[in-house]
């Protein structure tokens, strides 16, 4: 089956800054695809290009297996950066304009307003809305008439915790309906909680991409000590998931991949006739891991 979105070698330069560099990726149907990267990594520029807002310098992309035309954009619901509506029009009127542009009738507007809990305020002017409500209206406009794909660029930016929870819940609800979702975010936590697939972006290039649990798998490290440190070191290095080991003040810091648990280590070392005097699991936070991904790329 053809991918929903297929990007090939997309590049964009703003003056001296290369915003997006030779970027290629595929988003398959049904995925919740996260584009993860720090601010300025090229997420918004990339989405801008596939939505015909930004002209690429180089490269191409296809929606639904076809060269992009305006008709393909009508099957996409997009929330880009800030909510963009006419301040002097009501929520309903703003959605009527969206529906008209997309060649839909107005039948689906109430459903979208209900889903985003804006129905009671539908006749109030957009400028009277709180930021959270504005953001939800943007989601409502993207939801009109069940799009095939939904694009969300930093949908929880600037929201309070309650607003963040509401938006995330909405995204999950939408995903359950089988709508493919492309989510750009600088929050690792957000991508990990919501997405099935991810591309990690830095300085306009993809560092890693794949399924979330693979790319963002946390390799745990353990503090270990035994009476015979040398034997311990050898045994640790012989472990099939071994990554690295360092020694400080008589304690080894060993890093393993593949989701190794403390019990596994204990059992493994016991089998090698080593009795541990010290075993502590040191979990790295996801944020640390993400920063390391970026750092590795820089060095």
């Amino acid at each position, binding site marked *: 089956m053809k991918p929903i979105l297929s990007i090939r070698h997309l590049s964009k330069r703003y003056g001296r800054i290369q915003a997006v560099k030779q970027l290629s990726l595929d988003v398959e149907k049904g995925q919740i695809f996260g584009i993860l990267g720090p601010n300025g990594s090229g997420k918004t520029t990339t989405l*801008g290009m596939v*939505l*015909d*807002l*930004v*002209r690429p310098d180089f490269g191409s992309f296809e929606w639904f297996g076809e060269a992009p035309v*305006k*008709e393909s*954009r*009508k099957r*996409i619901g*997009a929330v*880009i950066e*800030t909510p*963009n*509506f*006419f*301040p*002097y*029009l009501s929520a309903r*009127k703003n959605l*009527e*304009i*969206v529906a*008209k*542009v*997309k*060649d839909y009738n107005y039948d689906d507007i109430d459903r979208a307003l209900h889903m985003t809990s804006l129905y009671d305020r539908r006749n109030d002017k957009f400028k009277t809305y709180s930021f959270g409500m504005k953001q939800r209206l943007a989601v409502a*406009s993207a939801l009109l008439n069940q799009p095939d794909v939904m694009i969300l660029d930093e949908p929880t930016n600037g929201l309070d915790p309650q607003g963040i929870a509401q938006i995330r819940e909405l995204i999950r609800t939408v995903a359950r309906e089988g709508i493919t979702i492309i989510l750009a975010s600088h929050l690792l936590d957000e991508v990990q909680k919501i997405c099935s697939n991810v591309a990690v972006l830095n300085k306009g290039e993809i560092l890693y991409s794949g399924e979330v649990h693979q790319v963002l798998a946390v390799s745990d490290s353990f503090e270990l000590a035994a009476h015979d440190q040398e034997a311990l070191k050898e045994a640790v290095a012989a472990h099939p998931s071994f990554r690295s080991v360092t020694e400080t003040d008589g304690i080894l810091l060993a890093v393993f991949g593949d989701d190794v648990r403390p019990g596994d280590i204990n059992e493994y070392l016991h089998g090698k006739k080593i009795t541990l005097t010290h075993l502590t699991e040191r979990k790295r936070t996801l944020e640390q891991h993400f920063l390391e991904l970026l750092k590795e790329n820089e060095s």
Partner: protein
Amino acid sequence: MKLLIIELKKVLTYKTFWIIIGLYFLFLGLGIVMAEYIVNAMVDDMNKRLPIPLPHAVLFNFPDIWQNLTFFASIRYVLIFPAIVVIILITNEFTNKTVRQNIVNGMSRNEFIFSKLQVVFWMALVITIILTLVMFILGLSHSDSQSLSMMFNRFNFVIGFFIQMLTILCYAFFTAFLLRNTGLAIALFTLYATIIEPVIYFFLRAPFMWENKVYTYLPVNAVIRVVEYPAIPALKRLMNLQLQESVTLLGCAMPLLYSAVMIGLVFLIFNRKDL
């Protein structure tokens, strides 16, 4: 049709639109009411120094009214009001970023331009129709019974006025798409139309006085020159002018040519730039 409905949704509930349009018709109405007094006050003033007194001007009788009122309605200070409305309606899309939303939702860039061109066209047409109705009613109440052919003798000035309005709105359309910023666009447009171009005109006029009248073809001037003079016999005698009897083909072609160029430039610029 779909594009027009979308534009109407955006415009009809927009308070600023109604306020400026209201101001425009207020000024226009006041101008029409006062025009006759002002012109005749000038005539009275001049008569003090003339051996043979000039007759009082009558502005509102058929068929002169078509020429007179379109002349007063196309003074540059009046024309800029509807132009400012067009600028606001277009730059709003950029400041509210709704243009991005429109494109994302599946409007093509050309469709977006067409939707704004519809605003330009319909606004020019509606203003022309309203002014025509006003002229018709005023003319009926100020003229003795005349034959229809006599009444509509100078109706071609109304066509001329429509071209004037269409062109000035096209200039506004171009300025808005080029600058994208409401304040900047209004300031530069007004400055150009009311000060910069008259100054350029003044400096061009001297060297070219006896040659080819190049200075009358500056953009805003070309628009104003479609209806060059009001039909006031006193003026004719006083200034020894050959007054125009109708709008000329060249007079109308120049502004239309400018409009076409501006529209073409907008398509070129808007399709290339990022949003």
